[in-house]
């Protein structure tokens, strides 16, 4: 009997113990130090658009003219501030208590289920269950809070369309006075309604969001009660600000600011936006070649 059960016992023991052993390396206590990544001082001189053409440097000291009224259209670049690898710029997952969102008990329980590959709780990348790495859409609000690169904004009399560089995805914000449909089917990007609160400030409310998405790259969860409020504020012709508020009474005791006045610069109208995808085939190549090796067993 013992001899017969031995293979099963060994296999089950390995199955259970291997993940446990790995998790020793990935506890918050062993969280990695920041890599201290920055751009070199002359990076602006090297910028090219997707067509390979150099992009002109802004002229120092030149004042931008006023913005056109009630107009967000243009090609907008947030620079490095939009990448937000550690989580939202205003609430990074860096271990500082002031950067912990105000979780409810239910929110904390949901947080335990997410295993991000970055941030203070980062696991070894091989253990992450990030839905975006698996190929799911980022959805909202993560589209604003991770890999927010160049955004092309088009405006019509009834809607504003945002076309994002990362993943080449787009979303629509309706401005025609409609309401969110009753019993709305949850969507990755939800249902967005926008209105001008003054000539230069446009506020967007998004609800009906799919619970499978994460709020950010640090794995903060959300419930079906999530309401995202985006405030676009046009500072002048060449600059646009974006702020993002998270309001989810089921998972957070009070609303919290995820992005606080991130500034975008206006690109020339002729600027060609470079393609940027996380192609599954390139992911596989990368993981097979380097990713799994880097995170693999110790050779020392």
């Amino acid at each position, binding site marked *: 009997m013992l001899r017969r059960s031995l293979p099963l016992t060994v296999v*089950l023991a390995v199955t259970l113990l291997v993940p446990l052993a790995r998790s020793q390396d990935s506890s918050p206590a062993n969280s990695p130090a920041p890599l201290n990544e920055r751009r070199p001082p002359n990076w602006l001189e090297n910028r090219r658009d997707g067509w390979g053409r150099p992009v002109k440097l802004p002229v120092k000291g030149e004042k931008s003219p006023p913005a056109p009224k009630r107009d967000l259209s243009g090609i907008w670049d947030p620079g490095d501030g939009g990448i937000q690898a550690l989580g939202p710029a205003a609430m990074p997952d860096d271990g500082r208590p002031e950067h912990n969102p105000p979780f409810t008990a239910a929110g904390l329980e949901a947080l335990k289920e997410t295993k991000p590959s970055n941030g203070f709780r980062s696991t070894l*990348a091989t253990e992450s269950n990030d839905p975006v790495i698996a190929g799911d859409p980022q959805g909202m609000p993560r589209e604003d809070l991770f890999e927010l690169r160049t955004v092309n904004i088009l405006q019509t009399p009834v809607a504003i369309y945002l076309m994002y560089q990362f993943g080449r995805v787009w979303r629509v914000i309706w401005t025609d006075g409609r309401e969110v449909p009753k019993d709305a089917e949850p969507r990755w990007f939800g249902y967005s309604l926008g209105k001008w609160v003054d000539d230069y400030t446009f506020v967007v409310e998004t609800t009906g969001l799919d619970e499978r998405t994460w709020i950010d790259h640090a794995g903060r969860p959300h419930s079906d009660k999530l309401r995202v409020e985006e405030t676009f504020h046009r500072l002048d012709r060449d600059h646009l600000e974006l702020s993002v508020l998270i309001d989810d009474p089921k998972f957070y005791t009070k609303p919290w600011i995820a992005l606080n006045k991130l500034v975008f610069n206006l690109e020339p109208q002729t600027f060609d936006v470079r393609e940027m995808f996380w192609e599954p085939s390139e*992911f596989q190549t*990368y993981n097979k070649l380097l990713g799994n090796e880097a995170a693999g067993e110790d050779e020392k």
Partner: protein
Amino acid sequence: MKGKVLIGLTLGIALSVLSLPLVAHHGNAAYDPTKQINLKGTVTQFIWANPHCVVLFDVAGENGQVVHWMAETENPTTMTNMGWLKSSLKPGDPISIRVITVKNGKPIGRIVYVETASGQRLPGRIVPTDDSGKSAESYK
């Protein structure tokens, strides 16, 4: 009884396979950010792709043995903005490279910078430090 053991064994193997790494992108937990090393080698391949560009290069090791190194940096979009091109490196190019290394001791690094034979320095996203661990050049 034999059947139950077989079912259990099959289930166990299936669970073991499912627990293997499926994805490995973007984590920095694998790296030791405090230690930077310099290497000289010859490029064998330059992969200009998402999620991270990778340089493969050979380094002459002890006893004449060649060590096959690989070093990653960021995605092509970010690297284009930092002066890199798909044609920046090609097989056969001699390079000097500074990297931080993985904790598991394998010849894998994350690029601080690459210097080509012509003297061009291609910066990675890691701020260079001197050997004492202090920042030698600030990107502030």
